[in-house]
């Protein structure tokens, strides 16, 4: 049971999926009490009409730190033993890894039969589940610790090491690192304990469940969420540390704290720190030294490992000396010989770190002791640049500390205000920070003040993926700079984590991580959500923007409008566009929900009769469940044109009438005098005309 304390410290930030025990208090799988858990009364959960997961049959011995195990029955093959891992909702999972290994027999890997999102009764919400073949022999470490499995140094390479190397090799062909290689994740596939396989690595972000011992120096300095995607080299390091523990049957550094172990690794190298006091077989020293090499370029690869396993002699290992000084830099009663350890210390003691950074003795130590003038100049430049940007974010003490730590140890993760992450693990770190603390202010500050570009600029060697990562950061910074719906922090969250479920409160329990499932989830939510709430929020908009391949900028622009009416039309247009493009069938609930919110949109029509017509028509379209038709009713171009023209004509008529009224009423005495003049004129005309008539009549009478 030596493995238990190692794993007790990881994955303690996110509660496990069913018990939700307080962090750190959750017992290790191996230490679970044997008493049967209370029955839930819920029936089996069926996956793809084939796999029956029994919520009343937990398999605590197969739990992983971020997922709970339950018994599974395959209805097509009842003899097949399987188990399901129920993931922690809200924790990003690795769909890329699942897709790569599902249904494929990969040598050395626990076969993944299926993965699916199901409604898990114990959680009362949907979550990701993975169905694996059940390893009948249990965990290798348990067997070794319990004395049920014994092997000598000669059998170890063939029976343990070779299958695990094959597992890494298999997974490397998919270009997806496993990042969960640790002793407790190695199983015997058969009851006879002959076949060794590597367990699950997809239920949590890369490296999330890894104890610090098994992670390379740089990645072990981050929080669980910020370990980064990593690469084959990281898998090989994980494997090297795992093999040490499996070979010995115990953790050789169990009594050393993580912090001390990390310091030892930095000052002596990983191999010396882990294997230093252990009695390892001489034959294994060479591969272990190769796998635990801290210089990634010099670390053994698959070629060397398979070559060694087949008995070929490998080229001698090149050890890059660790950068250290002959005399210490003293700070707060500590003696630092290596800039790495100093960097680590400063990042963890930010309140006093600036005293060391601005201390001339540090510059002298870097120049004379460490013999690295570049680092000394880098520290000076950092302090001087900050002084010039006193009022900018780049002039703050926290920025100076973060940058100085990078200068001292360029390979270390980015560390800012206690938030540490490897640059290839920012999205996962952001997600974990947000999901765990509900506040991602610090990761977003990191983006805003541009720390990742500083980190890349300080790297002395070019590495694969650097340019892609940098362009990703540029994109994320761009998204963050806009605060409209569909952008901002939420967009960064979903762009960076392609498999993260939508975190909108409306559908969080539906575990929607694919765009196709969004509208049905909203449709289902319409029954339980207050229908005065809009079926659109910042998370939904960002999720759609990140996952939907069509151009939705016009919709987002309308959605962002400060005018309520325009925003409502924007929401409807976006949802209608989704239904139309994704060919989603009738959405009665959502249509009814949206239909009830269209008041402001209908009011954008000027004509009352048009509005009445639309209001009368809505119930019919709601019964059809068609958002595109609803949108066409609300925002028909011809109807809009006609309404606008009618309004213009009406306004013109109103204005003409208004000015005529003003002309009549406003004239006052002028009108009175006009009327008098008209009266006098009329009297004169009447008089003259009468005289003419009288004269004519008299004249005619006289003549005849």
């Amino acid at each position, binding site marked *: 049971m030596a493995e238990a304390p190692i794993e007790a410290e990881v994955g303690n930030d996110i509660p496990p999926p069913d018990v939700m025990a307080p962090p750190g208090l959750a017992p290790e799988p191996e230490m679970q009490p044997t008493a049967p858990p209370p029955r839930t009364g819920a029936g089996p959960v069926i996956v793809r009409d084939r796999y029956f997961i029994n919520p009343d049959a937990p398999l605590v011995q197969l739990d992983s730190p971020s997922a709970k195990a339950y018994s599974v029955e395959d209805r097509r093959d009842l003899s097949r033993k399987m188990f399901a891992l129920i993931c922690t909702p809200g924790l990003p999972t690795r769909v890329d890894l699942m897709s790569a290994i599902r249904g494929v027999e990969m040598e050395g890997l626990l076969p993944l039969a299926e993965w699916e999102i199901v409604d898990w009764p114990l959680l009362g919400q949907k979550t990701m589940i993975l169905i694996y073949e059940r390893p009948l022999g249990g965990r290798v470490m348990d067997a070794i610790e319990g004395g049920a499995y014994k092997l000598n140094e000669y059998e170890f390479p063939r029976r343990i090491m070779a299958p695990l190397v094959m597992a890494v090799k298999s997974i490397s062909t998919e270009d997806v690192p496993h990042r969960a290689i640790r002793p407790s994740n190695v199983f015997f596939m058969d009851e006879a304990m002959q076949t060794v396989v590597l367990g699950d690595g997809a239920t949590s972000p890369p490296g999330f469940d890894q104890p610090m011992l098994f992670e390379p120096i740089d990645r072990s300095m981050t929080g669980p969420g910020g370990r980064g995607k990593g690469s084959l080299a990281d898998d090989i390091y994980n494997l090297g540390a795992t093999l040490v523990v499996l070979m010995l049957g115990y953790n050789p550094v169990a009594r050393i704290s993580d912090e001390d172990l990390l310091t030892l690794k930095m000052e002596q190298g990983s191999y010396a720190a882990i294997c230093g006091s252990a009695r390892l077989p001489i034959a294994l020293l060479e591969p272990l030294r190769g796998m635990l090499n801290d210089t990634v370029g010099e670390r053994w690869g698959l070629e060397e490992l398979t070559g060694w396993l087949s008995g070929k002699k490998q080229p001698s290992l090149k050890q890059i000396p660790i950068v250290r000084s002959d005399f210490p830099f003293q700070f707060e009663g500590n003696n630092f010989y290596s800039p790495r350890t100093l960097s680590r210390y400063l990042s963890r003691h930010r309140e006093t770190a600036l005293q060391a950074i601005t201390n001339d003795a540090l510059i002298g130590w870097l120049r004379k002791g460490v013999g690295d003038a570049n680092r000394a100049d880098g520290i000076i430049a950092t302090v001087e640049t900050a002084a010039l940007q006193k009022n900018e974010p780049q002039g703050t003490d926290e920025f100076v500390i973060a940058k100085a730590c990078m200068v001292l140890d360029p390979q270390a993760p980015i560390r800012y205000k206690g938030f540490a992450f490897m640059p290839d693990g920012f999205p996962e770190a952001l997600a974990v920070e947000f999901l765990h603390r509900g506040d991602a202010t610090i990761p977003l500050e990191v983006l805003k003040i541009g720390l990742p570009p500083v980190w890349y600029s300080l790297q002395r060697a070019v590495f694969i993926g650097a340019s892609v990562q940098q362009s990703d950061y540029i994109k994320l910074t761009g998204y963050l700079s806009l605060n409209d719906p569909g952008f901002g922090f939420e967009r960064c969250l979903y762009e960076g984590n392609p498999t993260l479920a939508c975190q909108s409160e409306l559908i969080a329990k539906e575990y929607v991580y694919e765009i196709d499932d969004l509208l049905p989830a909203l449709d289902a939510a319409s029954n339980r959500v207050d229908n005065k709430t809009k079926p659109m929020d910042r998370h939904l908009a960002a999720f759609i923007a990140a996952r939907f391949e069509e151009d939705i900028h016009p919709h987002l622009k309308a959605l962002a409008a400060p005018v309520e009416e325009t925003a409502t039309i924007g929401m409807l247009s976006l949802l209608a566009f989704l239904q139309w493009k994704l060919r989603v069938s009738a959405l009665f609930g959502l249509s009814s929900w949206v239909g009830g919110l269209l008041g402001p949109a209908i009011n954008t029509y000027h004509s009352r009769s048009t509005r009445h017509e639309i209001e009368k028509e809505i119930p019919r379209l709601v019964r059809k469940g068609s958002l595109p038709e609803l949108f066409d009713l609300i925002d028909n171009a011809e109807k809009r044109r006609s309404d606008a023209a009618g309004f213009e004509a009406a*306004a013109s008529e*109103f204005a003409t009438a208004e000015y005529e009224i003003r002309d009549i009423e406003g004239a006052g005495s002028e009108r009175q005098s006009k009327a008098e003049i008209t009266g006098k004129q*009329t009297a004169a005309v009447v008089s003259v005309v009468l*005289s003419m008539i009288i004269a004519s009549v008299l004249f005619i009478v006289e003549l005849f």
Partner: protein
Amino acid sequence: MAMPPNFPTASEPPPPPPPPGQGLRALIWGILLVGAFMLISLPTVILVFFGLLPTIVAWIVDRSDKKYAMFCVFGMNFSGLFPFLMDIWFKEHSTDAAMRILTDVFDLMVIYTAAGFGWMLYIALPPVITTFLTVMSERRVTVLKENQKTIIEEWGEGVINVVETLDKDSMNNPPRI
């Protein structure tokens, strides 16, 4: 779109003064004309002169440009005089006959009463016309307001904004005088 009418912002300019010497010329022409008429028909001239005395008075009294009072009085005055002119022209064309008419109180009463009727017309008709026009205007305002109400009911209060916008525009850009 109807544009606001340009209300007069200043009083209309006074008519230009008649050129010098024009009054004298008119007087000479008047004397010549009257002289000619006197040569042709002295009884007519006498009858017209004395018969149209109310018109002459009205011409003097009426200080307005258009001389509506004079025309009112003239019309009725002439109507009263015309039968006697017919007597002169068709029965006895002599100065005695003219004088006889002018000295007959009944005849004079007919002529001057007719002129008085003309004056009454001038006094009584304008208020009637004014009242009539006011009633017509009020009716028109009522109809227009009804139309506006209907427009607002159908198209909403937004139509009022158009008028307000036009008002603002006309305030910002007043018509040039």
